């Protein structure tokens, strides 16, 4: 057996260009499958993982969504907030005020949304999942301190803002005490473009303390829909309107995005299936060609006394080795391609995610390479090994 392995190896090495091409043919097919699956899993995990992390949250807004636009109908009152505290199953409530302000930094001005609220509550909602990159989170007595999102720090002004820099918000001077990390997809719109103030400071700067946004966290995710309905009912009662408040659970957010996910997953599975078929045909083609072009050699071997089985064994060893190498190279290329694709695609569509390489995908890729490679090597090798030696020797 060792002799036969050596012989097969020799034969592969002697046909270096052909072997490299065959390996590449297999590798490209496997790489296509591995990378697509990994990118698909990466997207899925990035989005569902994050949503699951936020699944206990309900956003409550004073307005309604008509079509694709949100129309603000007014603001919440302290009574609304107090009433919510009486609903069972609610863990945390944070009420926020929210308004656009004119912000000046080093003589440049820009309109930026400012969020104000209870520092502990706000911190609970944002600091833990997003993280502070520089400085620290707000304290209750930070009347002149602010924490800014990543885009405020880096994109909104010509110069990058750092901790201890001064900002002027609606003519009030503030000092930056902390800067958020760049937020992941689902927090990005809440955190990155905003300035965070204490409730007291926001009243001063915004000249209003209207509650424009309430975030609620529930104990039991399964009850979230129910609680959301109750919230809407109570607030609507308070304001005497039928559709004053709008509450959105993460569950309903997932549902809203569900169709999109289904399409994305369907497309990825479809492309992977096509890649699999193309890869299989490519592997078969290269294997067929490399065995066919050696029919003469097979004839010679038979003429000098090789049995059909000897010939078959040699060729199967060869195609297994080539398939194995092709599979390994394909997996490596696939993983690299998946990382690159997720990076490029992530930047292009604005959803940051990284490819998830599952061991079963790699094993599956290897298995496809081996099975398709060996099977497609087997067929022509068997055909050639069964030819009469004379026929095979004459074959050019």
């Amino acid at each position, binding site marked *: 057996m060792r002799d036969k392995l050596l012989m097969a190896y020799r034969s592969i090495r002697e046909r270096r260009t052909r072997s490299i091409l065959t390996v590449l043919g297999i590798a490209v097919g496997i790489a296509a499958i591995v990378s697509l699956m990994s990118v698909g899993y990466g997207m899925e995990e990035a989005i569902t993982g994050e949503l699951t992390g936020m699944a206990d949250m309900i956003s409550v807004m004073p307005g309604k969504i008509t079509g694709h636009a949100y129309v603000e109908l007014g603001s919440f009152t302290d009574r609304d907030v107090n009433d919510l505290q009486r609903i069972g199953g609610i863990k945390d409530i944070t009420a926020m005020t929210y308004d656009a302000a004119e912000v000046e930094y080093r003589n440049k001005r820009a309109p930026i949304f400012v969020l104000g609220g209870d520092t502990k509550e706000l911190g609970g909602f944002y600091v833990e999942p997003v993280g502070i990159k520089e400085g620290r989170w707000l304290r209750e007595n930070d009347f002149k301190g602010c924490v800014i999102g990543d885009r405020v720090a880096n994109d909104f002004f010509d110069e990058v803002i750092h901790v201890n820099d001064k900002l002027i918000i609606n003519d009030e001077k503030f000092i930056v005490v902390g800067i958020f990390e760049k937020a992941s997809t689902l927090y990005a719109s809440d955190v990155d473009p905003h300035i965070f103030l204490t409730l007291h400071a926001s009243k001063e700067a915004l000249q209003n303390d209207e509650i424009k946004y309430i975030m609620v966290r529930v104990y039991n995710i399964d009850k979230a829909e129910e609680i959301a309905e109750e919230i809407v009912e109570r607030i609507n009662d308070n304001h005497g309107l039928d559709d004053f408040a709008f509450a959105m659970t993460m569950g309903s957010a997932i549902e809203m995005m569900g169709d999109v996910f289904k399409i994305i997953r369907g497309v990825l599975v479809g492309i992977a299936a096509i890649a699999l078929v193309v890869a299989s045909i490519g592997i078969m083609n290269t294997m067929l060609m490399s065995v066919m072009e050696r029919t003469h050699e097979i004839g010679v071997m038979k003429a000098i006394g*090789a049995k059909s089985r000897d010939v078959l064994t040699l060729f199967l060893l060869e195609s297994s080795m080539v398939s194995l190498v092709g599979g390994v190279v394909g997996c490596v290329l696939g993983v690299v391609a998946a990382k690159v694709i997720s990076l490029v695609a992530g930047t292009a569509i604005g959803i940051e995610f990284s490819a998830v390489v599952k061991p079963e995908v790699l094993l599956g890729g290897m298995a496809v390479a081996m099975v398709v490679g060996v099977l497609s090597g087997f067929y022509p090798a068997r055909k050639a090994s069964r030819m*009469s030696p004379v026929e095979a020797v004459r074959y050019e």
Partner: protein
Amino acid sequence: MIRTENLTKVYRMGDAEVYALHDVNLDIQEGEFIAIIGPSGSGKSTLLNMIGCLDTPTSGAVFIDGIDTGKLSENKLAEIRREKIGFIFQQFNLVHTLNALENVALPMFFAGVKRETRLKRAEELLANVGLGDRIYHKPSEMSGGQQQRVAIARALSNDPEVVIGDEPTGNVDTETGNTIIDILEGLNKEGRTVVVVTHDAEIAARVGRTKRMRDGRVLD
């Protein structure tokens, strides 16, 4: 040693039947050196392929050492080709990815001979045909005559009783041709049965017996 009985091979060409061999009866004695001559298409090579167990007849039989080869399995035939017969082709038919040494050792590889043993014997066989200094050369790095000598060494690797040559001097120059005839003669003197098909008058003149073929039949 080798006997054919009403050996017939028919090829179909569309609707027509072409007789490559027509009731050939030939008896080759052990230790004989016989040349089969005749024009192209007379069936010489077909006859040789039958005797060499490379092809199967349409009807009739080939006996080697009294065994009817038509009754043997694929594997048994391979065994006969490997152990009893050494075949030399006009086109040399070396495996071009292997060097001279490995080509000569190949029949022993299929016979399951140990690596050290077969490489040692292959080296000796190559030295015997005057290629002791070329053992690591690939066929592409050798002249036609050298390749044919490698092919002869390969034919001898399992020490066969019969050596069969299909125009062994057909693709080499006259001088090399003479060397090859010398080698074949030597093999015959060692007691091997040598059967060659040839156009070469030189060979025909030096062998013990010639048989002429025409239109698939052996004359005389």
